[in-house]
């Protein structure tokens, strides 16, 4: 095998020999440049393969083949609940990122006169002074609520259509992890406002973790940064809410939907 380029690998010459529009030429140049370095072609093949398997080579479905009771598909809208959870998650992520520009997780006293903290005051600022701030917070709140509701209902849909059975057990368990993460997301966000309800809900959280057998004190210190609520509690929940949870949840949702892609939607029989 000589290292000299063979003619049929002369992509530049091949491009010149064709009549290409500027767009096509630009596209090909970038593609070839990247492909020489990253061997994109291998990955494109995988994607193409996935696409054809998923979209064009589907076998006839059970319902089609056996002319099954098509009344089942009256329930079809419920199959959108998973997508609905994803959409709500994306809306919450965008509005949350914008809120993050203005929120600061600090329990220092905001002013000399009152007992409000900087965290509380920054939310107050968002709601009363920031243009569209109230709408932003409202949107974040509602998309979070809607996501939780959609995830619960999605789980019920999966349960009552028996969609968790072989081969989808793993996705069910992944779903349990996801619904738990969703609720921890909600809980950690609830703490961030640092108003009375948030503070005392946090207090209950500390007590709950303390009553976990054996690992209780350790868990309380890890999550709440101590046995009573303080600056470190707020800071930890902030980092949990805007750093760890988004990364973990986004990855798991991608895997969850990837598995659905590979296995297909469970059909009624």
């Amino acid at each position, binding site marked *: 095998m000589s290292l000299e380029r063979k003619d049929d690998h002369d992509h530049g010459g091949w491009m010149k020999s064709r009549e290409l529009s500027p767009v096509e030429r630009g596209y090909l140049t970038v593609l070839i440049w990247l492909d020489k370095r990253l061997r994109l072609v291998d990955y494109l093949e995988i994607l193409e393969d996935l696409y054809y398997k998923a979209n064009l080579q589907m076998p006839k479905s059970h319902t089609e083949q056996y002319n099954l009771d098509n009344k089942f598909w009256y329930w079809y809208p419920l199959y959108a609940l998973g997508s609905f959870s994803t959409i709500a998650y994306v809306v919450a992520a965008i509005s949350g990122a914008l809120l993050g520009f203005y929120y600061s997780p600090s329990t220092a006293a905001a002013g000399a006169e009152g007992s409000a903290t900087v965290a509380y005051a920054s939310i107050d600022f968002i709601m009363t002074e920031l243009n569209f701030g109230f709408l932003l917070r409202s949107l974040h709140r509602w998309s979070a609520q809607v996501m939780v509701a959609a995830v619960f209902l999605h789980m019920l849909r999966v349960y*009552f259509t028996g969609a968790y059975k072989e081969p989808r057990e793993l996705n069910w368990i992944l779903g349990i992890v996801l619904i738990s993460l969703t609720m921890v997301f909600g809980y950690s966000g609830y703490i961030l406002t640092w108003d009375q309800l948030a503070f005392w809900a946090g207090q209950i959280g500390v*007590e709950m973790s303390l009553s976990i057998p054996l690992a209780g004190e350790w868990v309380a210190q890890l999550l709440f940064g101590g046995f009573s609520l303080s600056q470190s509690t707020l800071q930890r929940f902030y980092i949990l809410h805007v750093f760890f949870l988004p990364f973990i949840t986004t990855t798991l949702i991608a895997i969850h939907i990837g598995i659905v892609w590979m296995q297909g939607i469970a059909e009624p*029989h």
Partner: protein
Amino acid sequence: MAPSDETDEEVRADGTGIVPPDDETPTWGERKARSQGLSRLTYEYFERSRREDQDLRMESSYVERDVLGFPTWPHEMIRNLAITSFFVGMMIFLAATLPPHIGAPANPSQTPAVILPDWYLYWSFGLLKLGPLNPDLAILGGQKLMADRTYGVLANLVVVGFIAIVPFLNKGSARRPVEQPFWAAVGVFGVVFSITIAALSVKNLVPMDPHLLFDLTFLLPPVAGFIAYAVLRTMREGYMFELNRRYYRLRPPK
């Protein structure tokens, strides 16, 4: 491959030269076949699984629908866009009409009368209030085996753990609730219980005698489950006849 014009090129012996594959060079398939231990097992299994796929494809009477599906663009994309805009619009509408509230600032020295998490955690909060069900043992002199709070936390773990192992408890090919009235009834029990236990967690806000509420919390779910079971059992006869005729006779369940 043209070996003739390469013979006079100097062959480097320092290990950096690229050695051309000849007839003796094993292919990747052969290399894998020659491997040992776990990688050998992996290879053997993959080969089997590939053959199984192939066989199933050969004997399948499924119709390969080559281009019969809806095109992704524009059909699927426009549908998805429409659904997404509708959902996002709904959220914006909710956000605009029902803006959230923020309470008084945190005050560690003043416990509010009502402490609540968000609604979706009520069920978990309710499970923390199962103190009255925490068994006390006569041997311990009426002492409880564990603190009420520990009991509540464990109750949470048990509930979530049970839901997680459902796929390993209920197997088989049945999918519709009518095919398995029992498991559908378990589901209805669970849904109703999650609602009643949530109501229990906010018992100070429910205009009802707390004892009655506590009893109803554990009474309503089995009743609802039982009704669901009865209804589905009744429906099953007619339904399964159709289903058997259409489906199971053609594709008997394993």
